[in-house]
């Protein structure tokens, strides 16, 4: 290969200029298959990365290693029968998956929810957000190379929240707790005291976590300016949740749709400036602080009354024909369920709008021009769970 072929940088690698080296290998692109068992892919996810030197010039994600056609399963069981399956989508945040599904079915059937259940749902959703964001921060640090320690701190806190979930629903992660028209069991006074205790001390943990990480020079050097996502691209590509807000777009479904009893609580929506990996980390930490504020208000204002609507039907539940799309702000973004009923006990069509699957649409755009090591932390900051991506 002659030198003149090498003078122009390859398409899609901004800024990187190819060194003019006179050997037969230079200028060749190298295709690397990362995954499906690479530890940084958070499960069985694969990226086919084309490299020029160490610079990424092309990246194609490959999905489907965990595919079990969840939506077909949903068509073959009753509405209630799908509820435990929703736990298995994003297994870090089963409580919000349950809520999104319950909300869609309640929209479809016109089912009311008692006030106490709405408060309990908010408490559980915000605990889930704490859990998910804490884990994400830990995993992101692991991807950055802080091997072990931040992740173990994060997992310690996660177990306290999972203890609460277990004592309430009987299962740490596969909670299967929400029902159409309320929740399955009423939280006891002991449980509420435990949740209050956890809420009170979570800020202390966050302070400690932030002291070690947020201002850390190495982490700032590693993550700032990496994987920038411009707001226009984020909106067009359907990116939702903390990813979208890190790019500076003020769009939080808790404010926009005002579902449940969220309008009663005072909280702010943190926004990022640069849309890089550091902003995405920071947004999650700030959202956890806001979640603590919501938890304090919800636990203080929890009303009495029934946890289930007494008129709600669980067995032989047949919503009349029609369709509904219900969505909530999950920890990873907008999780929605689209249900089409033909009047039978099973849904005619059961569709999940998976936030982490759609957030991966722009993975290639964010990684172009960066190195493989950067691709690892960019993927870490997207926050994916493969149970939901592959369904």
């Amino acid at each position: 290969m002659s030198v003149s072929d090498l003078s122009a940088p390859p398409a899609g690698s901004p800024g990187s200029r190819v060194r003019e080296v006179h050997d037969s290998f230079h200028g060749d692109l190298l295709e690397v298959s990362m995954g499906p068992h690479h530890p940084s892919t958070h499960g069985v996810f694969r990226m086919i990365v084309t490299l020029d030197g160490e610079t990424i010039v092309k990246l194609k994600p490959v999905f489907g290693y965990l595919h079990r056609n969840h939506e077909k399963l949903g068509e073959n069981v009753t509405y209630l029968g799908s509820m435990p399956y929703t736990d298995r989508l994003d297994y870090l945040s089963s409580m919000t998956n349950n809520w999104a599904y319950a909300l869609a079915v309640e929209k479809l059937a016109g089912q009311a929810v008692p006030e106490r259940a709405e408060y309990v749902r908010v408490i559980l959703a915000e605990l889930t957000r704490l859990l998910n964001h804490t884990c994400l921060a830990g995993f992101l640090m692991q991807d950055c190379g802080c091997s072990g320690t931040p992740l173990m701190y994060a997992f310690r806190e996660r177990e306290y929240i999972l203890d609460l979930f277990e004592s309430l629903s009987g299962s740490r992660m596969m909670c299967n707790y929400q029902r159409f028209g309320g929740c399955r069991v009423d939280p006891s006074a002991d449980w509420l005291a435990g949740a209050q205790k956890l809420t009170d001390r979570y800020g202390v943990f966050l302070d400690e976590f932030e002291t070690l990480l947020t201002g850390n020079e190495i982490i700032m050097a590693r993550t700032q300016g990496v994987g920038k996502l411009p707001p226009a691209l984020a909106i067009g590509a359907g990116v939702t949740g903390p990813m979208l807000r890190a790019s500076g777009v003020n769009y939080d479904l808790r404010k926009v749709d005002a579902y449940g009893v969220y309008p009663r609580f005072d909280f702010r929506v943190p926004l990022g400036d640069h849309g890089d990996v550091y902003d995405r980390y920071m947004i999650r930490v700030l959202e956890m602080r806001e979640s603590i504020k919501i938890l304090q208000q919800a636990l203080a204002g929890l009303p009495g009354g029934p946890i289930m609507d007494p008129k709600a039907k669980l067995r032989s539940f047949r919503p009349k024909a029609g369709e509904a799309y219900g969505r909530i702000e999950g920890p990873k973004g907008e999780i929605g369920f689209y249900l089409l009923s033909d009047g039978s006990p099973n849904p005619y069509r059961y569709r999940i709008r998976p936030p982490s699957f759609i957030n991966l649409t722009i993975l290639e755009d964010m990684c172009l021009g960066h190195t493989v090591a950067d691709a690892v932390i960019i993927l870490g900051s997207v926050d994916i769970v493969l149970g939901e991506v592959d369904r």
Partner: protein
Amino acid sequence: METPEQIRDRLLARFPGAEITVVPNPGTAAQHSLLLGAAHARALAEFLRDDATLRLDQCSNVTGIDWPEKEIVETTKVATPDPANPAGPPKVVEQKTKRLQPGCLEVVYHLYSISLRHGPVILRLRTGNRTDQAAVPSLTPVWRSCEFQEREIFDLFGVTFDGHPDLRRILMWDEFTDHPMRRDYVEPDDYEWEPTPHGTVLEKAKAHYPAPPPAAGAPAQGATP
């Protein structure tokens, strides 16, 4: 936000030849949708995205629905003169007519506006049938978020999206031939069957072996009984 009827009227004023029908939703959610004809779908979608009062900049959810052919039995009562008693009252006979409702594949888009914070506006596209005309125009050039979701519908339902930049299977493997989300999909019975070369299984497995290349001059292997 405007009702679907108002949106339809405004679209028809802007695009006079377009086919737009409002599909009512009988359920309590009352999220009505707009069924677009394939010819103008891309132009209509671009208008909805850029229009100043709608600004539907986010396509949140894209999904497919399979509607197989359906046999509809209609019962009509026909009065015919009674042959036994022509002067008497006519005899009422129930006549059953069978009608085959043609099937189609449907793609549903849920649109929201992030800048104006409203929605959803629901668009529907339908294919001509479920076999040789299973194509609709892709809306990926309008909303990037459709890219993976349309690939998923292509994979699981078998809808071809004209104009999609990278239409490949996404969840199933590339060699897979069927579309599992179709209502009439039948799982192959030898789905995970792997031959192990012993006894009767070996005989069965031979059918799956590729034919050996014929060696020049020598008799083909396995030709002798």
